[in-house]
């Protein structure tokens, strides 16, 4: 855990980079510091490993005042990743990664073994071990940077705009990798970025800085999107936050309609009746394995000769489906918007249809999540329970996660 106690950094000349900052970074979580340039976020980060010393205030690392420790010793226990990777051009990849272990006095062989182990962890081919940094792509260099920071297994990882120098596709991959690594390693990560999308994607907590070295809001990403503290935060979060927030709400909170889902061998007339009963113009026809085949119009089913089966009707493509257990409401909404019928199929892990969405059901799920959220905020700092409020509606509810504490759905993709 990292604690800032009214930390101020004033530069000679009077510029105040950070102004009596209080901040607590819980152990094992990712804290993202985000804000426009000159807001003090990078200064804040660099004070943690004493690249910059505060003018006043204290910074505690697991209760120890870092000002009391030797800077070099302190830094060897804190991983550091920077924008341009900062790799040593004159060292091979394995020696770059082994830097801190060697500083700590490991034998060269052991450091190299550790380097190769880490290359595997960050998704680098071992063949690259003997190469020099210039022989690697920007994305690969950044992976080496992460591996190097992790080499001595430090509990704390500082990342200063780690992905801003690579192209957007590589950036997204690296962000996913960070999430995967973090799920495995549970480091205390402090990451600085100016990209609010990145902050929302990778942060457990996001601190939005405003110019002058103040925190405008510190919250979980979902809560930032739902309830920005003021106009500055709202403006900073940008367009689309209502939709983006749906990424944090589980699709399992959605009540799906299974009445208008029929098997392909159902009599056409019964299929048409099912649609009418559900109040819809379409039924979703499935194959014998209960996987979606396509949408049949009720009017088309009624026009088929007597004795026909639903599978013989003209079927509209069903578009893409969403997984009711792992996907978010955003995925469900997207599938619904793209579907020719304005309805989308939710499937289980085996691809079998659970039921179909409607806009009305999506609206209800979002509303329920909104009502449940403030209560969840009060109960704990944990993930908002979006899925609890909705299951009383009597119809088929998606199999809500068997483990109620399961983490929130995939973050924004």
């Amino acid at each position, binding site marked *: 855990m990292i604690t800032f106690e009214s930390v101020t950094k004033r530069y000679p000349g009077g510029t105040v980079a950070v102004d009596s900052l209080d901040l607590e970074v819980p152990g094992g979580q990712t804290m993202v510091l985000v804000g426009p340039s000159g807001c003090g976020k990078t200064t804040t980060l660099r004070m943690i490993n004493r*690249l910059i010393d505060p003018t006043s205030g204290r910074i505690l690392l697991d209760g120890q005042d870092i000002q009391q420790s030797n800077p070099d010793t302190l830094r060897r226990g804190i991983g550091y990743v920077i924008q341009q*990777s900062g790799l040593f051009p004159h060292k091979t990849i394995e020696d770059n990664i082994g830097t801190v272990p060697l500083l700590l006095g490991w034998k060269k062989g052991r450091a190299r073994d550790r380097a190769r182990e880490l290359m595997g962890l960050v998704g680098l081919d071992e063949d690259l071990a003997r190469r020099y940094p210039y022989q690697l792509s920007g994305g690969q260099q950044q992976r080496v940077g992460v591996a190097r920071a992790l080499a001595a297994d430090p509990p704390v990882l500082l990342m200063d705009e780690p992905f801003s120098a690579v192209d957007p596709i590589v950036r997204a991959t690296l962000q996913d990798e960070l999430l995967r690594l973090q799920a495995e390693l549970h480091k205390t990560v402090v990451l600085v970025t100016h990209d609010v999308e990145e902050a929302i994607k990778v942060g457990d907590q996001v601190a939005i800085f405003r110019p002058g070295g103040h925190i405008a809001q510190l919250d979980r990403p979902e809560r930032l999107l739902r309830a920005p503290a003021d106009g500055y935060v709202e403006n900073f979060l940008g367009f689309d936050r209502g939709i983006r927030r749906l990424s944090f709400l589980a699709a399992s909170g959605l009540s799906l309609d299974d009445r208008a889902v029929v098997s392909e061998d159902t009599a056409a007339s019964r299929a048409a009746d099912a649609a009418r009963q559900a109040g819809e113009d379409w039924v979703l026809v499935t194959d014998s394995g209960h996987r979606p085949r396509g949408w049949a119009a009720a009017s088309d089913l009624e026009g088929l000769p007597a004795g026909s089966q639903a599978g013989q009707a003209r079927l509209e493509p069903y578009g893409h489906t969403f997984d009711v257990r792992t996907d978010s409401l955003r995925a469900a909404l997207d599938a619904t918007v793209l579907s020719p019928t304005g309805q989308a199929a939710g499937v289980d892990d085996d691809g079998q249809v659970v039921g179909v969405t409607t806009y009305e059901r999506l609206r209800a799920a979002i509303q329920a999540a909104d009502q449940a959220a403030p209560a969840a905020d009060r109960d704990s700092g944990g993930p908002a329970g979006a899925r609890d409020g909705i299951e009383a509606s009597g119809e088929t509810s998606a199999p809500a996660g068997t483990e109620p504490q399961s983490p929130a759905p995939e973050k924004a993709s």
Partner: protein
Amino acid sequence: MNWAQVPTLIWESAYLGIVPALLGLVISVPLGIACTRWKWLYAPVLSTTSVLYALPSLALFIVLIPYTGLTDTTVIIPLTLFSLCVLLPAVVDGFRSVPEPVRQAATAMGFGTTRRLVQVELPLAVPIVIGGLRVAVVSSISLASVGQLIGVSSLGYLIVDGYQRDFPEEIYVGGGLIIALALICDLLLVLLRRVLTPWRPRRARRQVEPLPIGVPVRPLPGGAA
């Protein structure tokens, strides 16, 4: 002219070319480090080396003779002082060429100042320092021939002797050998740099070096090693 003495003359010229450059390097590295750390120091120190460079070598020899006599030392001291004018900026530029993120990463990983200097900054300064060394060696080799005027032997002997005996061929041979020796030393330094910096991209290696004389740099025959 006596061909048998030519190998000795070549050796003496090489000695008078290389030793001052190396001594200059030994002085320039700590001086350059100091000038990098205390930036205000650089301008006055650099001006001093320029003034030294402007001194006529013959005048310096004459000043030194009462102290060091008609020895190699009398030639080596001025040439060493001259080399500073090239080597000090090379060392300082070499340190400045270390990318800031690299320096910062080294600090953030817990390199102390000295360790960072030795393990990170010096190795990265090598290409530019060797660039300076090439100029220093080449100019020392040619300047050393002036030492012949006070009797310190080198390839300059062939020029002085040829002039005194009105024997132009000897002068041409002397001049040609000095140029050839300078080119060979220069080429050896290029090779040394390649060996010391396997980590440089090939493209950078092929770049024309900032040198006052044109030195044929042959591209490596294929392969990035």
